[in-house]
């Protein structure tokens, strides 16, 4: 939407004004369908990466402490995620968990401690059937057509129903003003205020610019992403030839983040 240039904008404005002066509202002249088609045309950002449903595959064998630190660091830096040390008020979009915590239902007494304590990067699963979207009373969190579960931090009333609804603990609440906890602010990404919920947004802003999610870029190949509905996509090829698991799949949320063991 952002790429309407000035000339086009003025043209639309001119037509609108003309219609207004003529005593006609634009809606009476142009049908609703036409407006939608018009809007649809401008929704497509040239060069933007698009998919029917975005998904991610995280290869746990390729993860090491360095990659994990890089991924979380870059994500939290570019998205102005405050660094709050108090675990009660922490805000996390992507972070390091142990296997036994990320997959508690798979925990086993005889599992090697190596696997139990294996690093797992966890983030919002961008579920196909997201409970957080279902419970939100203001549509402040919603699912986009491309499968990304988005947050409108300016509409969120901070009721935290989505946090109770999310079975993955992927959502964080701003218990106080986050500005005091951000060292180097990235002016290109909006800051949040206290009292709203936030989470990973699959780097929608980078996809629009034709860039992969920041964690994918920083992961040195450990994280792959793509359109899961496209049988020729990289991730579909990986999923068809590897055994992959998803967190708490039995809950029916249909997570879009897969893990390779």
């Amino acid at each position, binding site marked *: 939407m952002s790429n309407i240039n000035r000339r086009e904008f003025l043209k639309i404005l001119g037509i609108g004004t003309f219609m207004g002066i003529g005593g006609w509202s634009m809606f009476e002249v142009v049908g609703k369908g036409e407006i939608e088609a018009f809007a649809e045309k401008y929704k497509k950002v040239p060069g933007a990466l698009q998919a029917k449903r975005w998904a991610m595959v995280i290869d746990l064998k390729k993860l090491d402490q360095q990659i994990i630190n890089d991924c979380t660091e870059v994500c939290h830096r570019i998205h102005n995620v405050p660094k709050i040390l108090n675990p009660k008020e922490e805000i996390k979009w992507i972070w390091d968990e142990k296997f036994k915590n990320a997959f508690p239902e798979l925990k086993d007494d005889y599992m090697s401690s190596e696997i139990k304590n294996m690093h797992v990067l966890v983030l919002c699963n961008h579920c196909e059937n997201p409970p957080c979207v279902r*419970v939100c009373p203001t549509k402040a969190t919603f699912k986009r057509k491309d499968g990304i579960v988005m947050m409108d931090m300016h509409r*969120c009333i901070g*009721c935290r129903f989505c946090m109770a609804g*999310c079975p993955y603990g992927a959502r964080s609440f701003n218990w106080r003003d986050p500005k005091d906890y951000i060292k180097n602010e990235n002016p290109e990404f909006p800051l949040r205020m206290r009292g709203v919920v936030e989470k990973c947004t699959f780097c929608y802003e980078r996809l629009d610019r034709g860039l992969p999610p920041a964690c994918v870029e920083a992961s040195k190949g450990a994280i792959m992403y793509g359109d899961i509905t496209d049988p020729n996509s990289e991730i579909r090829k990986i999923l068809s030839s590897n055994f992959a698991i998803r967190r708490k799949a039995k809950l029916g949320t249909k997570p879009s983040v897969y893990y390779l063991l």
Partner: protein
Amino acid sequence: MLEIALKGSPRYWGWLFFLATLIGAGVITYLYQFQIGLGITGMSRDVSWGLYIGQFTFLVGVAASAVTIVLPYYLHNYKKYGRIAIIGEFLAIPAILMCMLFIFVDLGQPMRVLNVLLHPTPNSVMFYDMIVLSGYLILNLLCGWVILMSEKKGAPPPKWIKPFLYIAICWAPSIHIVTAFLYQGLPGRDYWMTAIMAAKFLSSAFASGPSLLIILCMLIRKFTNFDPGKEAIQSLAKTAAYFLLVTIAFYLFEVFTAFYSGITSHQYSIIYLFSGLEGYSKLVPVMSICVLLAAIGVLILVTPPLRKWEVTLAIGAASTFLCMWLEKGITLVVGGFIPNAFDRVFEYWPTLPETIITIGVWSFGFFVLTILYKIASSVKEKAIFDKYGEKQIKA
């Protein structure tokens, strides 16, 4: 009728002033919370609801419990409740107001609360909760006020109010069912995700509500000339007794399901609440007191001589009310968050500011309740005889 509330004894004014002081403390503390954020509470990213939402949940039950008086009176013409129908209806009003306030103080961005109306979202249970709560508030205000007004005039209530009375009776359970649906429809919260939740909510409401009404009736009798009637109080006690037993049974059903099935994730919250999990046991004393109070409640309310003697009845009613308050107002909400999504235990305990705000909201509720009861009892005192010819004031 409101003018009645402006004339009262020094004790009446003293009580209102006391409540106003507590409300003031709550408001000032709320301003502090508004300034800093919800970080001043004991809630965390793992236990993201606490005392506020617990109080909301509990008070929806108290509001719904008006139906335990209104239903027998209007549907079954149970005359003993003629005098106290208004007591039930007028309890529902401050209860709903407190519910709304507790939701409000729990919001991170309270200035955006109207977004719920601006962007109505029918897939969210919260949307329906808003509708049923405000509807119930209006119904009770309307029914209570109109009937009391006609009583004041010494005339029978107008006919057009009848459909509203019946709607209010059907509406009452809906507010608590919808509130239970807030919890029982969430995947991954095993303590809440059980079909018995709505049933248990209703039964515990119909135990705690009548218990509170028993105490309120006794206080009204003590401090005014209006007598709610010994039989009415006894009937309330029986209602509370049955529903207390049903609630305990429902809880035990849940325990059976969790432990006989052997599904550990269903057991964790229960283990945490009763004996602690991984060395964390902050809520064990609360749950122990809850069990003790339930036992006292059962003993007194079920044993006829103890139920009939009003001294023990008052203790039994208070125990039942407190037991349900601890269960629904604290442990239910917090227990559902423990352990968290990563199988870790992060505990919750309310902070001082959180507690002061909570007391402030409760005081506001009692402030409204006092005024409404003052009006109701003054009207009732003047009427002397109710429409069935039974004497309403103390001999």
